[in-house]
């Protein structure tokens, strides 16, 4: 267990009769970046949600930095402060400005003084290139800008790990680049990241490992270079072929 920041062990999750996750295990070391890929309805998002227990898992265990997240007695709000999450549909607080979106966690959750929180929020927004949009409301921002605020909101809390749930899937193709750049910057700064994405070029260049999931199970995983050049399972080959056709590899 030593050295691993995140350990997911045999996680199961069902919605009624439908078993979405059928025993998923994975590990993530500090500073590592892994990508989960797979067809839709496979349970990728559910898996991310089970890690910070937004969706409580039925069976199995999750540890973050040696603390069992799935323990019913654990203070889950404390854990969630250490796990950032970036959503497909951004989920910015629509009644708050970009700056307030980032600072509210710092003041209300972490209890920082307003001034300090404001400065930290400004810094986080500057990092994602939005210094000039701090007073804009989400409805006044483009999708790409909103998602960058979403990333800043997570980063500002200084998490140990950030979960990305298809962060670019809801964006126009032209806006994807700015969000990926913000993520690349984060990766280069050494952030531990677990991502669900279809951006294969990004996955290949930034991530240590690719995990292919289908029907609630991990089919195959491996170091990114090897995974793309030499996938073992036939199903993985088919999927990669399709996704390359659809999204290209350019990025």
């Amino acid at each position, binding site marked *: 267990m030593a050295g691993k920041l995140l350990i997911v062990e045999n996680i199961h999750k069902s919605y009624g009769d439908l078993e979405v996750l059928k025993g998923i295990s994975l590990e993530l070391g500090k500073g590592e970046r892994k990508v989960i890929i797979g067809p839709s309805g496979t349970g990728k998002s559910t898996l991310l949600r089970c890690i*910070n227990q*937004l969706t409580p898992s039925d069976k199995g265990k999750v540890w973050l930095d040696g603390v069992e997240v799935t323990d019913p007695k654990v203070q889950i*709000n*404390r854990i*969630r*402060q250490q*796990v*950032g*999450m970036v*959503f497909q*549909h951004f*989920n*910015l*607080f*629509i*009644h708050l400005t970009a700056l307030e979106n980032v600072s*509210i*966690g710092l003041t*209300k*959750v*972490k209890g920082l003084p307003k001034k300090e929180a404001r400065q930290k929020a400004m810094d986080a927004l500057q990092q994602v290139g939005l210094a000039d949009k701090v007073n804009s*409301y*989400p*409805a*006044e921002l483009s999708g790409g800008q909103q998602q960058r605020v979403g990333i800043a*909101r*997570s980063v500002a*809390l200084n998490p140990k790990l950030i979960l990305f749930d298809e962060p670019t899937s809801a964006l126009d193709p032209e806006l994807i680049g700015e969000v990926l750049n913000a993520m690349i910057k984060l990766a280069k700064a050494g952030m531990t990241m677990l991502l669900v994405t279809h951006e294969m070029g990004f996955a290949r260049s930034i991530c240590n490992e690719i995990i292919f999931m289908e029907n609630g199970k991990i089919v195959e995983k491996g170091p990114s270079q090897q995974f793309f050049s030499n996938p073992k399972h036939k199903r993985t080959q088919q999927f990669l072929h399709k996704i390359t056709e659809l999204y290209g590899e350019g990025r």
Partner: protein
Amino acid sequence: MENCCSYYYNMDILIKEYKSLLTGALIVLEVATGHLTLGFVIGLLLAAMQVYGNRFISFTAITIQKVLRGIPALVLLMLVYFGLTSLIDMSPVVVAIIALGLRSSAYQSQVFRGGIQAIESGQREAALSIGMSRLMTIRLIIFPQALRLVIGPWTNIFTMEVKDVSLAYSIGVLELLRRGRFIIRYTHGNAMLIYCTVAVFYFIIVRIGNTLLYRLEDKLLIPGFERRGGKK
């Protein structure tokens, strides 16, 4: 006195009695402010219980709300009046605030429930994901958005329920209508004039209230929330 009263004619009566009617208008404001505030607080609580409570809490809230909505306001006023004043000494104004406030809470709870349920689940998830507790999420994220959404329907409730203060004349609250009836009784007539004046007073109170609420809506307007009539 008795004799000369019949000689009062039209406008003279209004000039002589406007103070009484103005006091009545103030009492209308007092009861309306009181019962709408009480209804707001309990209504918000009932809505939160209904949406976020477990099965038992939710059922309790729904039952309270259904009972209060199913009883005529006049009957509720009588029930609270005779129920409470037999236990403790209480002024009719306070009774009216409690009775109308309880009824208002039931209606307001349904408006708030609609507002809360209209907030996308992603807002809640995002709040929880940055480590907010459930209570914080409701207080800082859900309620501020839901309340903005319901200013329109709430204005509707305000409009109906301010006028319902006139029902409180039945338990002896000296609001506009009751004062109007006094004047009619001891001047032996002038019913149309007095009732029209009472109507105008109520109308003015409602209009001023609505205008203030629209201003509030404008003030709280932020991009992404539609203003009434879809104007931007």
